[in-house]
């Protein structure tokens, strides 16, 4: 892949990123941050790709750490986000009245 093409892809991805975040409710800020955070766990791929090329124990050790870090970023990120979003199962945003009803049943009973 030539650098120019990679830049082209970079630019396009950037635009997607800008456009995709429109007006969002405040309560979604933290989950959204945490969700995007999980996505940059993609760096794991880099660590995986380098492992077979690693020469010597030191590099291998470094890469094991990198893989561990990347995995934590991914797994942790997605799980945490999912937990944060639980609250939308219990208290949906105002606009979604129809769903409010739905999730009452879903939500655990207020004894």
């Amino acid at each position, binding site marked *: 892949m030539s650098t120019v093409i*990679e830049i082209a892809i970079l630019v396009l*991805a*950037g635009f997607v*990123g*800008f456009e*995709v*975040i*429109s007006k969002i*409710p*405040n*309560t979604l*800020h*933290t*989950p*959204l*941050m*945490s*969700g*995007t*955070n*999980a*996505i*940059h*766990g*993609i760096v794991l*791929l*880099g*660590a*995986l*790709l*380098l*492992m*077979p090329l*690693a*020469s010597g124990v030191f*590099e*291998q050790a*470094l*890469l094991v*750490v*990198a*893989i*561990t*870090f*990347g995995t*934590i*970023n991914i*797994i*942790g990120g*997605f*799980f*945490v986000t999912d*937990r944060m979003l639980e*609250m939308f*199962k*219990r*208290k949906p945003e105002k*606009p979604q009245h129809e769903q409010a009803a739905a999730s009452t049943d879903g*939500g655990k009973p*207020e004894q």
Partner: protein
Amino acid sequence: MAAFAAISPNVINGLYIVAFALFIFGLHNLTGPRTAVRGNQIAAVGMAIAVVATLLRPHIFHGSATPWLIALGLVLGTAIGIPAALRVRMTAMPQMVAIFNGVGGGAVAIIAWVEYRHHYGGSFSLKAEIPSLLAAIIGSISFWGSNIAFAKLQELLPGRPLKLPGQVVINLALLVVCVGSLIVLASGVHSQGLFILGILVAAAVLGNMIVLPIGGADMPVVISLLNAFTGLSAAITGIALNNIAMIVAGMLVGASGSILTNLMAKAMNRSVPAIVAGGFGGAVAAPAVGAQTGGTVRSTSAQDVAIQLSYARQVVIAPGYGMAVAQAQHAVRELERALESKGVEVKFAIHPVAGRMPGHMNVLLAEADVPYDLLREMDEINPEFSRTDVTLVIGANDVTNPAAKNEPGSPIYGMPILEVDKSGAVVVLKRSMASGFAGIDNPLFYEDKTSMLFGDAKQSVSDITAEVGAL
């Protein structure tokens, strides 16, 4: 591993495309309350596909140790990540995100380092070298910055800004070191690994220096910013490694992350430059207790409050950061029950930026099983205050501060607030006359209709509940 060797790079890139399409689609869904949960899952599937695709790559398992080392890393990461994610208290989420973001940045830095060591002695094409060094810088800034953010939120470090004299100079110097060594390296001095270490260390210190001086309450914004950084560095690493999935996913986060950072700053009417400037030793981002505008303050007792509340038709509870600090949510839930049993109508007024993270109050009250149909968004409840007999302000301050409406000079002027001062009477539960996050005085406390119940929110609330029961 022969089986794998068969798979063509096109197939793998194809899977990468599917993966990032899922990322985008997931992100899109994450922006809507109804679709958010699904969105997160979709993105996760995308990630799984990307990882598997990478493992399908020919020669990825080349070398006897490789498969085991890879497995080791994956297992370790999972073993650490899952419990961490599942155990953390809802209210500790921001620091958790900070850590996860940090390790991401750390991974980038390490990758760049190995990249460099590995191409050691010059086989390194500029096309790969410059990006990977750039990634090293951004990655380790993000790593250390996130750790500081974590430490501050976790109160391992004091939340207040920590500054050295001449902060700015030092930071700039460090930046110069980073960029300098980058240029040196790029210009072909491969004689020894010192420079790359120089880069990593300088960037590390820089990361610390930038975040240390920032006030604890600005951390959510800072974390979001560092999150965008990590994304960017991931994209750049992708360029160095010719990996389209990394380029796209990283840049997605870089772009959406920076937009999000702005939105968050706006929501708590701060400006990103101002916050970071704090970090660069400029405008102080953190609270400084404002001069008390004097005026008489009426202090009251739990019993009086109990009576006021019991004989009210409608009571609105406006919780804030103080409720979080005091972990008073369960006590509050008790009080709400007690009052309802007395036939009082109780509602909760949720300000979008009450507490220290968006949705902070929603999380706490949800945790205490407060029925969500009692929760009211700011816009819903504000018209209702005029019809409210008593408003109980529990550890909230800035979000109820009329100065935001009346005093153009005020630092929070323009921030929409809970108009509690419109209700018949206001009772404020806090420990002192100290100011809140914005560090300014609150005229509300000096109004005639306002009475203060000093003390820890949890204690005060249970006292009130007891008295209500006793009536």
